[in-house]
């Protein structure tokens, strides 16, 4: 059974890696975007799905990574790959500054503080015009091919999957889940909740930091409003919840299915697709709060670690 699963996973990996060789440019671009959403949904899952601390400002780390990479590429002539990787360092630094005080807040207070963080970062980016281009943003020279970006973004989503798999199967992950389930009891039973939450938060900020850097190189132009939209955070939340919070494959499932759904609906109902997306949010929260994998886990007694 394990061998079969490994074979299937390998075939899927090879199939996805080979997409640029047999599919149209549209499919390649669309798959790159799915990779990005997988990385974002998975990173949100690491802090909010596992510990229950709902972050409404995760796009701040994505935007920080995007601006870090764009500045390094345009002003310091860095190659886009190390510049994107460095985006994870600045995102983690931001997470450390905000996480240390804010992870002591519980429930809605943390969620609201994260929402505030996003607005603060966006305002700062707009304010330091000489550095960030202010409201006009930063424009990068176009790339000859997006193929390297496709594999880089694919690598980030794969890394997100592997990191989540490792965490969910480790004692660290078990303790993060205990925080979600009953933080007071976990702490009284010897779990260093403050420290573990901060570690999880740093890891969950690094992935969007890299994804943001690659995204900046991909779109070649970033500006504050388009890089820090609340809708990006909401989308990653919905994708994670739809697939199954706290699971390994849930965010992948959610990101893939909802991206396909959005693409199909967007193309057919130009002015109606956001209403349908809103309907999905209501549907998931009311009828499937555990997401697809959560429901399958309950009905078919699947292991928690899928």
């Amino acid at each position: 059974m394990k061998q079969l699963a490994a074979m299937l996973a390998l075939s899927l990996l090879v199939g996805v890696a080979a997409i640029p060789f047999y599919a149209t440019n549209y499919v390649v671009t669309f798959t790159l975007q799915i990779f990005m959403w997988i990385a974002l949904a998975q990173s949100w899952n690491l802090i909010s799905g596992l510990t229950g601390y709902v972050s409404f400002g995760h796009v701040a780390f994505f935007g920080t990574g995007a601006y870090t990479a764009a500045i390094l590429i345009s002003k310091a002539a860095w190659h886009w790959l190390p510049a994107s990787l460095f985006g994870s360092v600045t995102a983690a630094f931001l997470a450390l500054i905000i996480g240390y005080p804010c992870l002591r807040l519980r429930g809605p207070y943390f969620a609201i503080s994260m929402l505030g963080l996003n607005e603060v970062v966006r305002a700062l980016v707009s304010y330091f015009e000489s550095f960030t281009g202010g409201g006009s943003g930063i424009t990068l020279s176009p790339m000859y091919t997006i193929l390297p970006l496709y594999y880089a973004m694919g690598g980030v989503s794969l890394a997100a999957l592997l990191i989540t798999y490792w965490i969910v199967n480790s004692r660290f992950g078990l303790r993060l889940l205990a925080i979600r389930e009953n933080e007071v009891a976990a702490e009284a039973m010897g779990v260093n909740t403050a420290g573990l939450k901060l570690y999880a938060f740093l890891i969950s900020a690094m992935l969007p930091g890299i994804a943001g850097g690659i995204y900046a190189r991909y779109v070649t132009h970033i500006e504050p409003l388009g890089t820090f939209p609340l809708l990006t955070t909401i989308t990653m939340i919905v994708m994670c919840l739809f697939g199954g919070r706290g699971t390994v494959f849930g965010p992948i499932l959610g990101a893939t299915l909802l991206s396909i759904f959005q693409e199909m609906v967007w193309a057919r109902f130009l002015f109606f697709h956001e209403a349908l997306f809103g309907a999905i949010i209501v549907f998931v929260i009311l009828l499937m709060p555990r997401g697809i994998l959560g429901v399958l886990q309950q009905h078919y007694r699947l292991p928690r670690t899928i």
Partner: protein
Amino acid sequence: MTQPDGKFILEVRGLSKHFGGVTALHRCSLALEPGKIFSLIGPNGSGKTTLFNLITGVERRDEGEIYFKGERIDHLAPHKINWKGIGRTFQLIGVFPELSTLENLLVVARSDWKSAEQRALELLRFVKLDNLRNEFAGNLSYGQQRLLEFARVLMIDPELILLDEPAAGVNRTLLNDLLCAIRDLRSQGKTILIVEHDMKVVMGLSEKIFVLDHGEKLVEGEPSLIQSDPRVMEAYFGR
């Protein structure tokens, strides 16, 4: 302030806690000798659970000092107090509902994974939950969840165990096993402090009882003395 007396495993001195205008504890003091079973009784709202919360760092004191084995602990985070050797259960059950019964024990283990799993299975057998090891803890009955919480405390092998209403919701057969287990822990040299409303359990187990009323320690003594103390009757039934 005098130094803590080395003969006590736990010393609470002049502990006070207010929630807004409500006084939950008022200058409460008590001391526990090691290797004995103690009970904390009192009417609802007398401050028993608050005292547990202050000892384990879940709540912060307003006044007073807490010493564990001669070391002051009232400024420490709850997990550090636990690492010193104090384990507890909760009045409102504190299991992790979406973790399996086995994972509920493994999550607090500090030894390597394999020996932790072995110990967890032993404890689940002990509380007769081993056949439910893969079941979500939230799906267990109330009494089973109490037993699981008890097993989880044993998993970390603390020197001082605080049990908040361990008998509530546990059926008679399992209760007898639980009482045997508590006596067994005492014979291993553990110190146990129990909050309990079941007077049969309290009188049958305890070597010393502390009675709280309106956040103050009313009286302390052996079970026979407590049973006949008019102040205790008055606290429970009024004048």
